[in-house]
């Protein structure tokens, strides 16, 4: 049994605290595998698995077994339970790294099978892909990039105003965060696009979208900035004052540079979130990724293809950005290892 004993991950990479007690793996225990197999069989029979596309693929096998049509669900469910339980048991024996990779691959291929079952036209997707990227992804990215830059500035000002001891600044800042965090982004887009022209200035679709995104995310990020500034110990302020720095200098030269280390990683998260929320500006006719996904392929009734392609593109961009974000986070944490 020795080979089956597990060594848990330890040290700085561990997320939660894993102790050093060695236990046998759950996936090696007969009672667990039994319960799992039973649960899958029961779910399969209750769900009428014998009448789905999955069972149809194995129709020749199930037909050969006794019981005929009446027991087809039972056989299919038993087969499925056997395969899944064996799969769980085998995966359970792998090392953590391999386990993660194998489960990822399995879930991903299930996902692909799911899409494959839609009977999509891949040649149609390939034909539209370049336009979706050059027009759609490009617009999505640049709208999000401009918006996050403006939001960053708004959040900085909002947080400083909020933490000041000026009644006007506190009131305006808290009103701003309260309104723009409390109202759906879609409504903000409509209000800005339809509302501003009533005052005499006709705002274009892209500026309106950028304004809505930056105001909304600026409000969210104000809270991040506030937390970042507040996390700097009071001693830093006092030391700066003792050295003769004025309040503004203290903030700009001493407090903000330190708090940025805490502020930048969540800002990256906000950017990834904004990338997806920017799909909402498609309602005012900006030709970004979501707009194209909803309009391309309509004349051939191939909208599902376009939605799936857009989903894949959004996902890919998010993955790339998450990698960049992780790298940035490591870099910023460099000077602060314990």
């Amino acid at each position: 049994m020795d080979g089956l004993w597990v060594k848990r991950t330890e040290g700085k990479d561990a997320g939660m605290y894993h102790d050093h007690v060695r236990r046998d793996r759950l996936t090696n225990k007969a009672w667990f595998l039994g319960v799992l197999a039973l649960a899958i069989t029961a779910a399969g029979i209750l769900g009428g698995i014998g009448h789905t596309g999955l069972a149809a693929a194995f129709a020749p096998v199930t037909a050969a077994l006794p019981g005929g049509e009446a027991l087809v669900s039972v056989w299919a469910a038993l087969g499925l339970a056997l395969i899944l339980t064996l799969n769980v048991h085998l995966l359970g024996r792998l090392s953590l790294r391999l386990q993660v990779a194998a489960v990822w691959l399995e879930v991903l291929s299930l996902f692909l099978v799911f899409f494959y079952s839609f009977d999509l036209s891949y040649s149609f997707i390939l034909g539209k892909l370049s336009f979706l990227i050059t027009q759609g992804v490009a617009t999505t990215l640049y709208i999000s990039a401009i918006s996050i830059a403006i939001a960053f500035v708004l959040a900085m000002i909002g947080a400083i105003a909020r933490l000041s001891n000026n009644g006007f600044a506190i009131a305006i800042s808290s009103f701003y965060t309260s309104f723009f965090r409390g109202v759906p982004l879609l409504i903000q887009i409509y209000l800005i696009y339809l509302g501003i022209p009533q005052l005499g200035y006709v705002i274009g679709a892209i500026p309106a979208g950028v304004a809505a995104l930056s105001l909304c995310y600026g409000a969210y990020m104000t809270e991040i900035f506030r937390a970042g500034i507040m996390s700097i110990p009071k001693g830093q302020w006092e030391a700066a004052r003792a050295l003769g720095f004025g309040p503004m200098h203290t903030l700009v030269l001493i407090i903000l540079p330190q708090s940025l280390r805490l502020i930048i990683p969540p800002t990256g998260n906000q950017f990834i979130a904004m990338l997806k929320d920017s799909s909402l500006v498609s309602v005012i006719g900006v030709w970004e990724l979501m707009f194209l996904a909803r309009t391309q392929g309509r004349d051939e009734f191939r909208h599902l293809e376009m939605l799936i392609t857009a989903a894949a593109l959004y996902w890919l961009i998010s993955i790339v950005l998450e990698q960049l974000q992780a790298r940035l986070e490591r870099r910023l944490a460099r000077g602060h290892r314990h």
Partner: protein
Amino acid sequence: MSLLKSLCLGAAAIGALAISTGAANAGATLDRITQKKEMVVATAANWPPQSFMNKDNQLDGFDVEVAKEIAKRLGATARFITPEWGIITAGNWNGRWDVSVGSMTPTTGRTRVLDFPAIYYYTPYVFAVHKTSKLDSRAALNGKTVGVEGGTTSEDYIGGKLKIDAVGVPDFTADVKPGTVKTYGDSVGPLDDLRLGDGVRVDAIVSALPTVEAAVKRGYPIRAINDKPAYHEPLAIAIDKGDAELNAKLTEIVAALKADGTLKSLSEKWYGMDYTVAK
């Protein structure tokens, strides 16, 4: 500064809800078109065969070609923008675009915020069911689940609220009393639910005959029920309120398009038949 600005923007947005101004000055839109030699047209991008993006990623379709023809006769070229349908029908365009050639029905509600210089064609609306459905007359649809596109004449029709006071439209009655009405965000929604099977999500839908025919051509397992059309929808060119000169000019151009057969040939090209007169 930025805080102040953001506050202003916020206040502006709220204030705008209360204020409602913005009628165009007489002749202002027409002047803008003739001076710039460009007519900005608001249209949908996801509504084949009226207007959609074709294989070359250009806008194409019946409405798009009609708009280009109108622009040509104004001595301008057409440029298209694609805001959401609800933003076009809401009026108060503030000069963002000059004209909508978007198959819009001149309902009583819309005439309050928009002017309709001319009706350029009529679309028959029909009930459609799944291919395997046994329902074969309007009377059989009473008490059934019917899908419609929200914010359109089909929704008004099924709710018994449709009023069309345009000339040349045959009379109609809303004689179907559905059990449940399902409303969708776009014209393909009802079709996609109907294709799932007879009575799976809906029993029937109300849709434009050209839309149903296009779907059938693309392999949707549906059919229009064998009855006379539910109603004919008159479809008009729309402009922002208050430009009488542009209104008169567009009326004249559409009359000319009808007289010289241009509209008829475009209709036959895109719909396979002449929809410029209601039958």
